[in-house]
């Protein structure tokens, strides 16, 4: 058990190191010159060299990498070229927005997908299940980017009930001390702000949630239907329980486990999707900042963001592994 966990951890670290190396190498062959863009008109070549030395860009890539890695281990991710602020602070400032969006999307996907799976199982073999299948097929065939655009048209323009841009209405006074707006608005009992934030987050969250909801519905329904043939489910029926009770109490807890591992991987895809969805909805999160950083050729910032994403991805997978062990009584006692 311990050995397995340690191996898992080591493998995760190797993956993270690999991500760092690849990003580092890729962005250093960028043809555009970030330094040139920072120079004022009339700057001399000496000025440029001095600036390059300041950001360490005059050394070899390997040297630069180890300097950067040493900094990272001390918690220093360098300084953003475009804003001249420490990368760590910039990234951590945006992280809460992206986390809140991802978690909201995850919750929506689990609730919606789970409900569809239960309904489809309860009325299996009929029109209801067929309708659920068709809906899932549609949701899976089209990625979050297109769902986002469709939602903008439907609920931002045709029937404008939600905001389609930003994280919170700019006219509002913000009393927040952290960047977890959604969370903090609840803590401060400012439900007016909370409603405004949710009205902003809802569309991007739904766009991100749709494909995942469909996957959950599909896998869970399949797994539930297989479980419904098992003897303990039949035995439960003979005890006098109705179909709904048998599905939720006997089948569901056993059907969730096989779904869980796949949902873990799919959740990382969802987080990856925030990059473009945040752009689409002008939501001020990490992904939006990442695209700006790429366009501005802000090398230290790009590195920081990509590493953070990789950290989140691998972290999610570790958590799912852990959950699987906790939820499975057979492994718990092993």
């Amino acid at each position, binding site marked *: 058990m311990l050995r397995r966990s340690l191996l898992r951890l080591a493998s995760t670290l190797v993956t993270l190191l690999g991500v760092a190396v690849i990003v580092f190498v890729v962005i250093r062959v960028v043809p555009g010159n970030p330094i040139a863009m920072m120079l004022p008109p009339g700057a001399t070549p000496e000025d440029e060299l001095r600036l390059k030395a300041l950001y360490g860009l005059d050394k070899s890539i390997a040297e630069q990498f180890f300097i950067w890695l040493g900094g990272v281990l001390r918690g220093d991710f360098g300084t953003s070229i475009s804003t001249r602020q420490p990368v760590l602070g910039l990234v951590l400032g945006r992280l809460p927005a992206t986390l809140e969006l991802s978690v909201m999307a995850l919750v929506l996907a689990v609730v919606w997908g789970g409900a569809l799976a239960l309904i489809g199982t309860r009325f299996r*073999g009929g029109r209801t299940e067929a309708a659920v299948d068709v809906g899932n097929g549609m949701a899976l065939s089209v990625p979050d980017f297109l769902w986002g655009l469709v939602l903008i048209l439907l609920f931002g323009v045709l029937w404008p009930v939600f905001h389609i841009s930003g994280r919170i209405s700019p006219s509002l006074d913000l009393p927040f001390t952290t960047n977890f707006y959604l969370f903090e608005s609840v803590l401060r009992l400012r439900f007016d702000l909370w409603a405004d934030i949710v009205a902003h987050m809802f569309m991007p969250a739904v766009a991100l949630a749709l494909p995942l909801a469909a996957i959950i519905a599909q896998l869970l329904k399949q797994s539930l239907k297989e479980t419904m043939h098992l*003897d303990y489910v039949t035995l439960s*029926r*003979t*005890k006098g329980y109705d179909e709904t009770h048998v599905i939720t109490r*006997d089948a569901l*807890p056993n059907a969730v486990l096989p779904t869980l591992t796949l949902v873990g991987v799919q959740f990382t895809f969802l987080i990856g999707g925030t990059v473009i969805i945040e752009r689409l909805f002008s939501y001020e999160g990490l992904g939006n900042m990442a695209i700006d950083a790429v366009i501005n050729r802000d090398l230290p910032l790009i590195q920081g963001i990509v590493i953070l994403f990789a950290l989140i991805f691998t972290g999610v997978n570790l958590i799912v592994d852990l959950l699987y062990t906790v939820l499975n*009584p*057979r492994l718990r006692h092993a």
Partner: protein
Amino acid sequence: MSYLHIENLTVGLKGTGDRLLRGVSLSVDAGEVMGLVGESGAGKSMIGKAILGILPRSAEVLGGVIEMDGENLLALPPRLRRQRIGAKAALIPQDPLTALNPSRRIAPQITDRLVDILGWDKARARDRARESLAEVQIPDPDRVLRCYPHELSGGMRQRILIASAFAAEPKLIVADEPTTALDVTVQKQILRLIRDMQARHNTALLFVTHDLGVVAKICQKMTVLYGGMVLEQTDVRSFFKAPGHPYSAALLAATPRHDDPAASLTPVPDHVVQAVRAEVAAADRMQRHG
């Protein structure tokens, strides 16, 4: 009036003309054990499933009466029927390894029916679960109640399933090949346990099996089935003396003898199988024209 009375029960495969049970009639009284015998596909477990309302989704009851405790189950609305079955009947399933929910502890799997369907309070149900486990000779019932199924052996789990079936004091139990999945050594103990429990609780027991040796040990009455049709219904003693149907006789000749395993076996001869098939087909024609 018998406790369970089935009249002309017909079960078919949905959407096809195929019939799985062709007008089966039988009666079992309290304290009686009825064996349902036949080869696989004879429809013997289909009878138990029809009674308990757990037919596969592809099958449906086409006609007949299932009367339990003087009430026709098939005439009740589904909800009420389920509750009646839950309150008055129970199943001892075939495979103890798959019949317990792996993610729930043993205690709630025994007490759930007592609390939810029969309306007992939790403490009383817990006491009853403990008593039932003691009754099937499980040592340290309190520990076992806290276990998950995977922590217990197959024989132990079959005992738990038997205890669970008897815990609600049902008047009717359907045992669906309850010893087939077990080791031969365990089989005998479990068989004796079921017989003892049945006698002590004065339950009507329907015992589904393909093993005539088991029938001889436990049943008083028996029904021989082929192709979903009753060929012979008799008491066990006279069956083993002189089977009433040529197919039954062939089946008996094809059964290994427990006292003399070396005795030569004769498989059911082809002409007997053909004759019994013709009989089923003739009954089908009768039914269609009559």
